[in-house]
């Protein structure tokens, strides 16, 4: 009868559930299984250090997690970020080998989907992982916020949305919020005597937030944002949206002039489309252009219109230490070797999301997220940690502050348009210093 | 019981039915024969409301009343107790034999979505229906396979199931379209025997069948059609000898 088959079904389910729980409880990584034999290549996702001279018995293995958008609309950030985080783990294993700590990395794909992100975080948690680096989308961060706080999981993120500038225990954001970047850009406009700005932005949470922040910050200098036009960043749409936004921006600006500027709030790929649309525009091609931390140093944008960028004296700000900072140089160098391409956009931040956790663990010897949380708060006050993105200060919301920015621009070097470091914004003083090679960009 | 008067049905230039008159007597088994393309299936479609005729009327006599059912939509024709079967059996494959019957019973209280959750509203009716269904299944000889899935039946059993289903739906007049096409001879006889058994209980039959050698043994009255017209009618023996009928089969 039916009830018989029903009970069989129930029994099967119970057995499966029990088996699954048993599988969960049994953790292969628990007693530091000596798995150092495999993984000769560094860029697989469980990156392990090559065994050092320390005896295997005294080595303590700490597994940290990374939650990255490896599929979906922000895949391009996630894949590059994964590499940066793997590099960080490799570096940490070299740096802290003497302390008897070895780091392992487990990567999960969040697909920039809040639901998936929370599920994967819970999976990581069940594996005993209490430190998770690299959360990318602000929507993911929103979804995991409560879970992290309740279960004491320390998360480092590269989200910059001003929406999350709220108390959020156990979550630290490595890049400054868009408010900080907006401050730099406003100061830069002011310094160059700009009075009218028109903005074309990527219509996602990041682009909208940064645009709003620029509008607020420029008010303080009496600079007017005459218009802000979004385009759809969704990869299923068509880049013609960028052209249309540029068109509208051109109309809003009306006439060119030395007091006018064009601000491009984009990533690299979509920025290229904006540049292509703007370089032939009769109005926009005659004013100064500005970018953001996520399109300067971009390869696609340079390819699309390097000459035009140079002609428009394109400049953008990247939160960064002094360009001669050995940390950054070291990182950039290593990254290129390790990942096969130069770091762009958020790569150094991704690196730091992992490195700051590992350094805190190595320095304190503690793997208690509560301890690390207070250590990071302490370090954030003093700027103790200095990473690929310079000294890290956190404000009361665990967001990066007092950040110094590098002003990056495009000039023609030997006939080819090239990215150069044109100046430096000191986050503490709010002053802009112009480097000698950047003089041309700052002249009128 | 059913009176067909001067039905004309035209498809473009092609006149499929050209003034057909026919009477299906209550309580009898009437056979309709004719070569391919003579208009038999078209006629059934006109009667059951699938097609509207260009001319002519269809009358249904029941309970002492006469209804002009010409051009009625299929579900209204069905509601009068006229049930047809199809050449290709349209049974509910993944339902059991019993379910096939229960599913077609009329006026089920449990088919409302809110009533469905309240078993009290329909359990008694369901029980009555099941009893009737078992009786019907026993009548047509499917009593032993009542809990089998319909797709596992043999071709002959499927035909019987269609018949049983028509009975379950409360049919007074059952129109069978080729009930023994593709059925082995022994089973074919059994099916016609069943038709007679059911007929003995008062159900009128109107059968379209090609295999006249078998069918003639079981029917009361025969109509023969050719080219959209009735060419002969009468008792089976008479029709079988009618040269016009033979001509229609031989002459093409």
């Amino acid at each position, binding site marked *: 009868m039916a009830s018989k088959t029903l009970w069989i079904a129930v029994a099967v389910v119970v057995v499966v559930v029990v088996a699954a729980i048993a599988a969960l409880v049994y953790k292969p990584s628990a007693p530091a299984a000596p798995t150092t034999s495999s993984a000769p290549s560094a860029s697989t996702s469980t990156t392990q250090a090559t065994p050092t001279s320390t005896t295997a018995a005294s080595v303590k293995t700490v597994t940290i997690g990374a939650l990255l958008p490896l599929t979906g609309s922000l895949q391009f950030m996630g894949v590059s970020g994964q590499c940066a985080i793997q590099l960080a783990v490799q570096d940490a294993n070299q740096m802290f080998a003497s302390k008897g700590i070895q780091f392992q990395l487990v990567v999960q794909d969040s697909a920039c989907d809040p639901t998936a992100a929370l599920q994967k975080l819970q999976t990581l948690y069940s594996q005993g992982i209490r430190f998770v680096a690299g959360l990318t989308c602000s929507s993911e961060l929103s979804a995991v916020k409560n879970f992290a706080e309740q279960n004491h999981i320390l998360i480092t993120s590269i989200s910059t949305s001003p929406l999350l500038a709220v108390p959020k225990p156990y979550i630290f954001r490595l890049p400054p919020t868009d408010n900080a970047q907006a401050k730099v850009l406003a100061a830069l406009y002011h310094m160059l005597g700009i009075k009218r700005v028109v903005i074309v932005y990527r219509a996602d949470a990041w682009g909208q937030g940064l645009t709003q922040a620029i509008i607020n910050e420029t008010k303080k200098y009496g600079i007017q944002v005459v218009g802000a036009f979004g385009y759809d960043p969704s990869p299923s749409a068509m880049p013609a949206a960028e052209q249309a936004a540029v068109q509208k921006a051109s109309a809003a600006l009306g006439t060119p002039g030395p007091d006018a500027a064009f601000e491009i709030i984009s990533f690299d790929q979509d920025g290229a489309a904006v540049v292509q649309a703007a370089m032939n525009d009769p109005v926009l091609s005659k004013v100064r252009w500005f970018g953001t931390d996520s399109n300067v140093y971009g390869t696609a944008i340079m390819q699309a219109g390097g000459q035009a960028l140079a002609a428009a004296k394109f400049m953008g700000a990247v939160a960064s230490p002094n360009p001669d900072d050995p940390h950054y140089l070291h990182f950039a160098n290593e990254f290129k070797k390790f990942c096969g391409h130069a770091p762009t956009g958020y790569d150094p931040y991704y690196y730091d999301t992992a490195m700051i956790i590992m350094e805190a663990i190595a320095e304190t010897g503690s793997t208690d997220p509560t301890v690390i949380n207070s250590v990071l708060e302490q370090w954030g006050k003093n700027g103790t940690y200095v990473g690929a993105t310079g000294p890290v200060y956190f404000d009361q919301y665990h967001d990066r502050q007092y950040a110094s920015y590098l002003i990056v621009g495009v000039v023609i070097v030997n006939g080819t348009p090239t990215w150069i470091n044109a100046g430096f914004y000191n986050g503490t003083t709010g002053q802009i210093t112009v480097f000698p090679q950047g003089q041309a960009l700052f002249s009128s | 019981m059913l009176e067909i008067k001067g039905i004309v049905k035209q498809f473009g230039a092609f006149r499929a039915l050209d003034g057909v008159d026919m009477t299906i007597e209550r309580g009898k088994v009437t056979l309709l024969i004719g070569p*391919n393309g003579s208009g038999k299936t078209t006629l059934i479609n006109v009667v059951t409301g699938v097609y509207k005729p260009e001319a002519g009327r269809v009358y249904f006599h029941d309970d002492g009343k006469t209804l002009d059912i010409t051009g009625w939509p299929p579900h209204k024709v069905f509601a009068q107790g006229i049930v047809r079967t199809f050449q290709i059996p349209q049974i509910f494959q993944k339902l059991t034999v019993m379910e096939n019957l229960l599913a077609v019973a009329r006026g089920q209280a449990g088919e409302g979505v809110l009533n469905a959750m309240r078993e009290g509203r329909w359990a008694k009716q369901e029980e009555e229906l099941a009893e009737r269904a078992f009786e019907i299944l026993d009548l047509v000889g499917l009593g032993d396979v009542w809990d089998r899935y319909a797709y596992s039946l043999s071709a002959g059993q499927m035909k019987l199931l269609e018949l049983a289903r028509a009975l379950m739906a409360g049919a007074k007049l059952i129109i069978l379209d080729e009930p023994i096409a593709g059925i082995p001879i022994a089973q074919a006889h059994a099916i016609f025997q069943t038709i007679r058994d059911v007929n003995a209980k008062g159900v009128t039959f109107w059968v379209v069948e090609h295999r006249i050698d078998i069918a003639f043994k079981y029917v009361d009255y025969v109509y023969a059609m050719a080219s959209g017209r009735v060419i002969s009618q009468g008792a089976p023996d008479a029709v079988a000898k009618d040269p016009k009928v033979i001509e229609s089969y031989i002459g093409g």
Partner: protein
Amino acid sequence: MPLLKISELNAGYGKFHVLNGISLEVERGEIAVLLGPNGAGKSTLLNAIAGLATIYSGSIVVDGKDITRSSPSEIQKIGVGYVMQSPNNFGTPNIFPELTVRENLVAASVGVPQDAAEKALEEALGLFPKLKELQNRKAKFLSGGERQMLAISMGLMKRPKLLMLDEPTAGLAPKVASDVFSAIRSIRDMGITILLVEQNARKALEIGDRAFVMVTGRLRYSGPAKELDEEKLGRLIMGQ
């Protein structure tokens, strides 16, 4: 040795058992006509020979080769051409409506070497001059008679030894039908054996050398066409 020899054939479609112990022989170079009322299993017999029906038991031998379990394309290679009824029991016509006349013939010549196919094509078009005129017209725009002629030509493309025709004159005007019958005769004169299923028994018997009558899946008559008079045929068909 007869060209076609069928012994004790039981066949049908899956669950639907149609043919009951059919045995018959067709000699080379003759026109054999297969008669019987609708539903007697005539088309099923042709489908069984062509490899399109399910054979439960018995055997079919063509030109000395047993083709009982062969695939349709193997059977065609052995030399059996088949012009289906239209619409056939799959509900499709016996030509490709969306293809031109010429393309229909090309499609029917699959597996034939290029030069032989071209020759056969010219021959077929020669047999029906009307088709030659219409060779670039889509088949769906042809008249009923033209469609039947096309279907017959398609059956000839592989130069069969045995050509089976299923009701080639169904639905045709008498004048057109007699054109088809004379075409069938000239095909026989080309040396091709013909197995013809016809509704129009009278005409068929006129051109046929041998006749078979099937009723309800059984063979009721087998013999020279001349000896089958209409009265006898009528009785057979009416099941008496």
